[in-house]
């Protein structure tokens, strides 16, 4: 929890103090979903209302965060992938556990105890508070990890019954209502449960109790589903001999793109970046990469973007192998093929979005991602920083709020303000003559000043590159062209900043 809070507060070096409480919304209102040890020692419990928890903890010493079970689940999957360094079989035990089958792995680490201590140590270096255990069965390892005071390592199955006897019934992963029912008749520990006749347990408390007990003691087999990293979608073709025929290479690439599209279709995903590798004889491979603004698995579109570069690739002494790989993928669900004219508005918008994506892909891959942009407005009053331009390949694009009505901004803002000489009859009036770009301009009308000050909390300095205090004027020359000029208050110099073209 503290690691997440440090990330949210923007720096690993900033220490987070105070008790951390995760808050969820339920029918009772805002309740505690989880809390750190400091809060727990103060009396905070899961399910308690936030108001009650706040009353138990010192004022100002509580940090409330929203509970994010989906994010926690994704983080657990990533942790499971990381834990494959200890065992090839790692399963997730939601909400906050991992089950590793370390059969045969202890020798690599110098024994089971060393393996366990190393795993715990590396998890703690990641900022996690961890408890663990190694036992002959998953059930007993789960019990010892959560209910033992120290990391436990049990090597022999014969010791399980004795070791489990003193643990509470919650260690068997039995539901809370069954535990309560057993507690009412005096069964409080696993040892008490094991002393009961086996035949009576299913009828009285359900089949789950006996199953969990057998899984813990090893009398029943328990299997887990390990997490598997998805192999990237890849298709490859090997020629019988090196070829320099462009038609053969193009046909091979098109076939591989069809195959890649089919693979992505099975996974309900689309490619965001595709790499085509032409392995040449006695030369370094030619690598052609294309990016897409949205997930795509349409082989026709993939080929239309890759084709110009495949045609221009230098084949050297011949190509002997071609591989096509999806570097980055995104989710792309299946869509019902339409044969009728799309009159549904939502379907039309979806079609327009796809066409827009196709256009952006073609333009960006030919001209460069930085040359195809979308514009937006930043929340600033400084004219040079008002306009934002981001690559059109990025999916999230915020337009921003337009300036307040009545604020006049030119249609063309010069890249940087250009110095000019001006003559103004009065200090705070528009200039009457302007000398700019080698031309003498007579001004016959002007509006202003509009004073734009610097963001004093951020910028200092004067000059065109900085943002000092400026008085802007809209001035018109004799031919009707309107210019946006300003005078720096600090230096008195004049600049032309924009034109209403």
């Amino acid at each position, binding site marked *: 929890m503290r690691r997440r809070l440090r990330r949210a507060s923007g720096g690993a070096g900033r220490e987070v103090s105070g008790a951390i409480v995760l808050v969820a919304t339920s029918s009772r209102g805002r309740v505690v979903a989880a809390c750190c040890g400091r809060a727990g020692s103060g009396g905070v419990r899961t399910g308690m209302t936030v108001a009650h928890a706040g009353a138990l903890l010192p004022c100002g010493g509580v940090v409330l965060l929203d509970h994010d079970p989906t994010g926690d689940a994704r983080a657990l999957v990533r942790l499971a992938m990381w834990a494959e360094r200890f065992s090839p079989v790692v399963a997730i035990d939601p909400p906050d556990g991992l089950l590793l089958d370390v059969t045969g792995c202890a020798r690599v680490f110098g024994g089971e105890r060393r393996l366990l201590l190393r795993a715990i140590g590396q998890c703690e270096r990641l900022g996690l508070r961890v408890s663990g255990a190694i036992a002959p069965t998953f059930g007993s390892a789960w019990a010892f990890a959560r209910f033992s005071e120290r990391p436990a390592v049990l090597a022999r199955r014969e010791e399980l019954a004795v070791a489990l006897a003193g643990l509470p019934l919650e260690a068997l992963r039995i539901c809370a209502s069954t535990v309560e029912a057993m507690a009412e008749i005096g069964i409080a520990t696993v040892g008490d449960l094991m002393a009961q006749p086996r035949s009576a347990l299913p009828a009285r408390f359900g089949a789950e109790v006996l199953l969990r007990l057998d899984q813990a003691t090893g009398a029943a087999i328990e299997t887990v589903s390990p997490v598997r990293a998805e192999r990237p979608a890849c298709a490859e073709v090997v020629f019988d001999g090196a070829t320099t025929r462009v038609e053969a290479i193009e046909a091979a690439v098109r076939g591989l793109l069809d195959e890649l599209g089919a693979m992505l279709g099975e996974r309900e995903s689309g490619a965001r970046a595709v790499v085509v590798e032409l392995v040449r004889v006695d030369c370094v491979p030619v690598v052609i990469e294309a990016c897409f603004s949205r997930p795509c698995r349409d082989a026709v579109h993939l080929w239309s973007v890759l084709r110009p570069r495949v045609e221009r690739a230098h084949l050297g002494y011949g190509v002997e192998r071609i591989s096509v790989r999806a570097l980055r993928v995104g989710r792309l669900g299946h869509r019902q093929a339409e*044969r*009728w*004219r799309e009159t549904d508005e939502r379907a039309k918008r979806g*079609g*327009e979005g796809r*066409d*827009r994506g*196709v*256009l*952006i892909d*073609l*333009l960006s891959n*030919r*001209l460069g991602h930085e*040359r*195809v*942009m*979308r*514009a*937006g*407005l930043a929340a600033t009053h400084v004219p040079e920083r*008002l*306009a*934002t*331009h981001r690559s*059109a390949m990025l999916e999230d694009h915020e*337009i921003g709020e*337009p*300036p307040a*009505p*009545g*604020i*006049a*901004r*030119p*249609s*063309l*803002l010069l890249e940087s303000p250009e110095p000019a000489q001006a003559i103004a009859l009065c200090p705070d009036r528009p200039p009457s003559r302007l000398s700019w*770009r080698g031309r003498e301009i007579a001004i*016959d*009308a*002007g*509006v202003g000043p509009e004073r734009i000050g610097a963001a004093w909390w951020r910028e200092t300095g004067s000059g065109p590159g900085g943002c000092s205090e400026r008085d802007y004027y809209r001035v*018109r020359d*004799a*031919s*009707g*062209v*309107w210019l946006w000029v300003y005078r720096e208050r600090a230096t008195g110099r004049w600049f032309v900043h*924009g*034109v*209403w*073209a």
Partner: protein
Amino acid sequence: MDRSHVIEALRERLAAYQPASRAGAVQTVAGPLALGAVHEWCGGEAGAGWMPALCVLAGVARSLGEGVVVWVGKRCRPHPCVLTGRCERGPGESLLARSILVDAPDGPSRLWAMETALRSACVAAVIGDACAMDIACTRRLQLAAESTGAIAMLARPRAEARVLSSATTRRLVIPAVGQGADARPRWRIELVRSRGTCGDASMVTSRDRWCVEWDHGTGALVALSGVEHGSGASAAEACERRRGA
């Protein structure tokens, strides 16, 4: 059943499978613009200091429909503040949200980008820097525009107002002087060329003029007066004369 009725019904069903093609013209403050055509806008001085008539182009682009508007060329990059107006023909995204800016490095790239954009089904208009483009280039753009019904608006310097071109219309954009000290930017738009206006008497004729003004408050181009017809004959009379000849 009558055979002709069956054939007619089948034709209608086939037409339903075809993508909707755009035809006709759209009314703007600078007169009607034919869909699927190239329209040239000449204004400003040539050379390094040339500035396309961005206010006029942005104002006209607002009234062209809901599709994407592609701006091609570094000179054809208006400030986002003039693109914040919404489409005049109904609610929807603002022009800023629908705009894509393309910075093509040279003339052939600009031509390719404009042609590719015109052939895209989602594009309503392409506004590009057509400085130094010859008749072959404009012909390519004309064919591309006809294929989807999009509009191509090409900005040229005023010095190229007499260059040969395949454009359907060519307009001169000239800054005009407004009244009073607090006047808004104003332009006089003069139609100097209009090709193929037969068949629709409401289309424009050469030498028609409009006077427009930029409204800072709404970020829109406002027509100050109706069209001022030039000294040339009306379209219907010109068509009749051509048929008679």
